[in-house]
């Protein structure tokens, strides 16, 4: 029988657990329910657009109770007046056309919604609803019940209208308007036919062209003047100086020509140049609007918590209103928002995101618990010690070193070239002027300006934007999302790579479990599995999932001793599972102690232990081997060094392994490397790496789900593509090569143009041909080359 997959969500169905409904197969009740909802409302078209597009709904009982709180509600709503309310929700599951269709037809499922609109690239869902007939909470529940649970975090608390910067689009529009009209008007003059009527209207045409050139010159090109001025002020010669110089000289010379009636001027080339350069700028800016590279703890924290009042009533309060002495209720999988003291008798807290420890820690009543951990298991109560802004994690975040967005002046490759380009250009112009001044002052002036005009490094300036823009898109398609084009240059400069361990080179999902000791009989495995079923300890859960399915037997006496283990009687056998001390296991060698283990003792006979090993990502060995040839590799971990021997066998010999690193130490480590002259790339995943990611030259965050959370970084890499890191680095090197190649090409154009200019033969028509021609050649050259390299390397992998 072939493998069956769920009609709704597409997951493989576990044998004998499938649910048949309406001649379709589902993997769980949740998926079936969603299908029922859809078929009830005549919305089964959902399944026609895309095959199994859904997600099974999660249990969210009580999770969104805070939406009843008026104060919180008013912060989340975008607009509210009378009955009409508008809200924008972030829904990570939006991924296909079916999603758009079902969400935009939400009013068929939930009454009270007037319109709903999906913004697919941003994964945002905007709903206009009648706040009298339906509450936001009901809408959120409806969404969750059909598998589209919104992601609401503290970030939503300050929904200020963030203004989109559209100035580049306006500038491009103005530039194109001017360019197009001027081209049209200057067409008659290109033929230069001595015709009576044309000559008669020449002043009119030229005046009109002059007026049309002004908006382009003054508004569209304004960024270049500002940038050139700034770079002059900081005594760095960047590419914008010759550009600004070229534009201004071109305008002055053209105006002069027109007024003195020498010719038609270069207004057509001028506006064309501005338009093409802005187009390049536009192309380079590829934003992944559904990702955020500047996230801080806010998008990780919940917006509200459940507070227990003195009269034991529960209330949802905004997180900023929590003060010292409050009592909070934390449910399973909920985040601990503030530092506090545990009041319930025990808790299992997963700190992997904050500290990098792989295994959840057990806390007892009275223990201090820190913000950022996730509660796993039962509901717990805690008393608040510090408010949100004073908690350890937020303090860490607002710490200056963590904040400091390392403001190194990246010298881009274009700027490096223009350092030589600008002085040489000026020299040539002056030399031409100096030569011609002996013959004719007028020609000398013409030559001087012509050199500056024709050498205006339009093509040079376009090379990098188009190459990087294209590479950015190619990488984005392969799930490596870069913050901006500069990151590619930084990637190419990297010589040292530092990896975080937990969550980066290991997966969060599964652990590898090994057994050591006396062989366990099948009956004993059945007994162990049944004992484990009753336990909520994360290790027990992991081992339970690992052991094969068995029949269920009732456990007689079951006792869970916090921090030690489980003691149970089953089929009259005394079974102890737990730590080495608990079962009085034989003393082990030191190297074994650090490992995470569960020991088994049956009827007072010590059997052996299960060892939990971290599961490394697929292709890790190959990747490290490939990287170690070109880069220095280091592994930093917040975890203990129990995995050292294991890692040493997998990773290349020269890899440096450092364990027990706190977030601050990681940052310091990167800083030291940089001080010794290294260009460091940090690959991490959690909040514990945030400082190191910010400090490093390139910070890449590896994420299992790119939509949900990743710390501030330069690039986000989808975890499934982790093993291809090598390919992305190679591609960045290739893109620098492409840029160098096209620099040569554009310099060749400049030499041709200059030979016209220096001999005093630069006609407006020649300029109008050379400039667009060079632009088109360069753009097509870099596009073809970068696609070629991306494709060829892809094949060789």
């Amino acid at each position, binding site marked *: 029988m072939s493998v069956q997959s769920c009609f709704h969500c597409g997951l493989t169905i576990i044998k004998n657990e499938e649910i048949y409904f309406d001649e379709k197969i589902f993997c769980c009740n949740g998926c079936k329910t969603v299908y029922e909802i859809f078929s009830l409302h*005549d*919305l*089964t*078209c959902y399944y*026609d657009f895309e095959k199994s597009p859904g997600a099974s709904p999660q249990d969210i009982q009580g999770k969104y109770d805070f939406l009843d709180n008026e104060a919180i509600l008013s912060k989340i709503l975008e607009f509210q007046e009378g009955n009409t309310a508008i809200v924008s929700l972030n829904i990570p599951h939006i991924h296909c*056309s079916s999603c*758009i*269709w079902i969400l*935009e*037809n939400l009013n068929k499922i939930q009454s009270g919604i007037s319109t709903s*609109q*999906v*913004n*697919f*690239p*941003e994964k945002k869902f905007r709903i206009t609803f009648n706040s009298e007939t339906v509450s936001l909470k009901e809408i959120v529940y409806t969404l969750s019940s059909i598998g589209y649970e919104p992601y609401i975090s503290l970030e939503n608390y300050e929904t200020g209208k963030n203004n*989109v910067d*559209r100035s580049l*689009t*306006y500038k491009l*529009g*103005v530039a194109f*308007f001017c360019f*197009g*009209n001027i081209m*049209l*008007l200057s067409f008659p003059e290109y033929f230069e036919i001595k015709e009576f*009527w044309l000559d*008669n*209207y020449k002043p*009119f045409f030229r005046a*009109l062209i002059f007026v049309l050139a002004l908006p382009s010159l003054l508004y569209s090109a304004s960024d270049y003047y500002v940038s050139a001025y700034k770079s002059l002020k900081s005594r760095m010669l960047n590419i914008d100086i010759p550009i600004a110089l070229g534009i201004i000289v071109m305008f002055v010379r053209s105006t002069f020509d027109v007024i003195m009636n020498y010719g038609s001027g270069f207004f057509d080339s001028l506006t064309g140049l501005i338009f093409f350069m802005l187009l390049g700028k536009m192309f380079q800016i590829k934003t992944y609007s559904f990702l955020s590279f500047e996230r801080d703890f806010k998008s990780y924290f919940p917006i509200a918590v459940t507070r227990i009042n003195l009269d034991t009533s529960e209330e949802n309060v905004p997180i900023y209103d929590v003060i010292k002495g409050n009592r909070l209720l934390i449910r399973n999988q909920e985040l601990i928002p503030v530092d506090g003291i545990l009041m319930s008798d025990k808790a299992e807290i997963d700190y992997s995101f904050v500290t990098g420890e792989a295994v959840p820690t057990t806390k007892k009543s009275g223990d201090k618990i820190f913000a950022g951990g996730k509660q796993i298991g039962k509901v717990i109560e805690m008393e608040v010690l510090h408010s949100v802004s004073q908690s350890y994690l937020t303090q860490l975040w607002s710490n200056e070193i963590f904040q400091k967005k390392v403001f190194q002046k990246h010298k881009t490759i274009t700027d490096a070239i223009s350092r030589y380009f600008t002085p040489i250009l000026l020299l040539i112009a002056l030399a031409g002027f100096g030569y011609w001044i002996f013959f004719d002052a007028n020609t000398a002036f013409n030559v001087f300006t012509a050199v500056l005009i024709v050498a205006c490094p339009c093509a040079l300036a376009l090379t990098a934007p188009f190459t990087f823009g294209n590479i950015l898109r190619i990488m984005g398609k392969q799930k490596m999302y870069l913050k901006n084009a500069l990151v590619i240059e930084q990637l190419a400069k990297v010589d040292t790579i530092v990896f975080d361990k937990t969550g980066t080179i290991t997966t969060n999902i599964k652990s590898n479990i090994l057994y050591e000791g006396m062989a366990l009989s099948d009956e004993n495995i059945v007994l162990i599995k049944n004992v484990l079923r009753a336990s909520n300890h994360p290790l027990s859960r992991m081992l339970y999932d690992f052991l094969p399915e068995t029949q269920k037997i009732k456990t007689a006496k079951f006792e869970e001793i916090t921090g030690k283990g489980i003691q149970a009687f089953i089929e009259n056998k005394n079974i102890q599972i737990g730590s080495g001390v608990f079962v009085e296991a034989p003393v082990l060698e030191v190297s074994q102690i650090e490992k995470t283990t569960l020991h088994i003792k049956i009827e007072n006979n010590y059997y052996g232990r299960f060892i939990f090993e971290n599961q490394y990502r697929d292709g890790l060995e190959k990747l490290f081997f490939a990287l170690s040839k070109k880069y220095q590799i280091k592994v930093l971990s917040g975890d203990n060094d129990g995995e050292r021997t294991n890692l040493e066998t997998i990773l290349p010999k020269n890899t440096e392994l450092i364990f027990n690193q706190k977030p601050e130490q990681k940052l310091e480590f990167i800083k030291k490397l940089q001080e010794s002259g290294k260009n460091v790339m940090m690959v991490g995943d959690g909040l514990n790496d945030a400082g190191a990611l910010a400090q490093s030259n390139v910070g890449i965050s590896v994420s299992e789900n790119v939509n949900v959370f990743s710390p501030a970084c330069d690039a986000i890499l989808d975890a499934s593509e982790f093993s291809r890191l090598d390919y992305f680095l190679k591609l960045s090197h290739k893109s620098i090569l492409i840029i160098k190649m096209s620099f040569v090409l554009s310099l060749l154009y400049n030499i041709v143009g200059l030979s016209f200019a220096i001999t005093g033969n630069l006609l407006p028509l020649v300029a109008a041909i050379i400039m667009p021609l060079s632009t088109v050649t360069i753009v097509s050259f870099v596009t073809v080359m970068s696609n070629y390299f991306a494709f060829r390397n892809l094949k060789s992998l």
Partner: protein
Amino acid sequence: MSVIYLLISVSIFVAICFFIAFIVAVKSGQYDDDYTPSVRMLFDDETKITSQNKNQSTEEKQV
């Protein structure tokens, strides 16, 4: 030939009209999401078909 003044000013005027239309479109956020509308325009029919089917079936029942 002085009609050329009129013709050119008309052409510039038309161009300016289009330019203003473009600015208005950008300002209203039309270019912010360039993907969803392309998918959305294919949908409308689907809902109509299903609702028509429903209407038909109820009518048939009534008959």
